[in-house]
């Protein structure tokens, strides 16, 4: 698996894509593989204010429960209902159509501390 270079990666195995002051967040391919068959996903309501590092939801496989951590502070402006309805998408396209939430942030530069694709690839080796 080669990780997309236009994304940033957290130690908790979330990815973040920055477009202006909007940050799209999901879980990485490494995370979905570690989880196995994803059967449940819970996401926050639109409008919720998140702190950096705060739990924003949960993803569950048949065997495991895993919290989701926000890589940045901001307001949730979108949540991907389609993965709540069909969590198996997280195993198929974690970096694309199975995105989780979109956060509006006042400080996108805070994401600079996250890993790039090369560093994350090394981190998960």
């Amino acid at each position, binding site marked *: 698996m080669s990780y997309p270079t236009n994304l940033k990666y957290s130690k908790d195995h979330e990815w973040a894509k920055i477009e202006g002051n909007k940050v799209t967040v999901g879980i990485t391919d490494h995370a979905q593989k570690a989880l*196995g*068959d994803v059967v449940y996903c819970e996401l926050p309501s639109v409008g919720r204010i998140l702190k950096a590092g705060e739990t924003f939801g949960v993803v569950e496989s*048949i*065997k495991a429960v895993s919290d989701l951590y926000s890589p940045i502070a901001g307001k949730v402006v979108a949540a991907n209902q389609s993965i709540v309805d069909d969590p198996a998408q997280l195993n198929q396209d974690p970096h694309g159509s199975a995105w989780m939430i979109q956060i509006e942030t006042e400080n996108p530069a805070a994401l600079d501390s996250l890993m790039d694709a090369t560093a994350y690839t090394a981190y998960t080796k």
Partner: protein
Amino acid sequence: MLKRTALFEEHQKLGGRLIDFGGWELPVQYSGVMQEHLACRSAAGIFDVSHMGEVLVEGADAEAFLMFLITNDLSKIAIGQAQYTAMCHENGGIVDDLIIYKRAKDRFFVVVNAGNTDKDVNHILEIDKIFRKKNPNCDLRISNESHNYTQIAVQGPKAAAIVQKLTQLDLSQIKTYWFAEGQLNSGVPTFFARTGYTGEDGFELYVAWDQGPAVWRALFEAGKEEGITPCGLGARDTLRLEVKYPLYGHELSDETHPLEAGLGWVTSLTKGDFVGRAAIVQAKEAGLKRALVGLKLIERGIPRQGYAIYDVSGDRRIGEITSGTQSPSTKLAIGIAYVAKELSTVGTQVRVDIRGTKVLAEIIPTPFYKKPKETA
């Protein structure tokens, strides 16, 4: 250092994801829990269960000793038959659940849980001391044979047909919870037990430790056509959960007694004295406080071990989930739970506390999964 079964390299070759399970390095999954689970229900799954402990109990007084050790009435089974049972502490708490195979009138093969093997052997030896005090001249030998066996389970509707390809022994003559000692066509002496932990028909095969890899590969080859699928501990757990088979450390523990754990059917209070009997009788007379039930969530979520259960108003805590998952066969979020006796009847609505939200659930009949009727 984790212990490895004789099949360790086979698991690596198959891409199994290895984890620590009760001190053993075993695959939790190969291709994925869902796919493995469904393959076992529709065709056949093959499992390495060599981590299970085996204890041989022999001698003219072996049966009398085991009758004193366990909760079930061992005198009910014939040579060639197996019996599921529990063994208890003096206070009625469950030491472990086990299967006993009667190989001869004076020879029994006792199979216990992997994570409990050392505890169980120590307990059996303690009880042996008590038994010997009462029966000073008894003829009784106990030996831990756990390291001598590879145990492979082949389970599912196609399991018997697959195993049959490898032996001249007529497996159709072996009924459920019976066994036979014979050999494979390759000459390997094998103990064929029609037992399992999946709710499916199938066999558990015991062979000499170092014969494991060859037998495992032969079963694979034989079952290719039928779609035999290697299954890890993950699928083993969801398969047993769907049929509400208890698991030590979840439904069973040193703190639970057999009647509340739903093991009344393997507890004979009329067979004579056994370790824990007095405490179990006392608990029965006092009235059971809780019951082991099956439930499904009505609202979204997945119940997991340790989640608290409340009455439907959400005010009173009435129990706890012991095992739970998203059931691959029924597609329901299911759980096994201890709840207060008065709220344990089928149809009762309760609430499961999932990360602070009290989610509506209902007690439903078990097993959760029932095999489709045979179309013969």
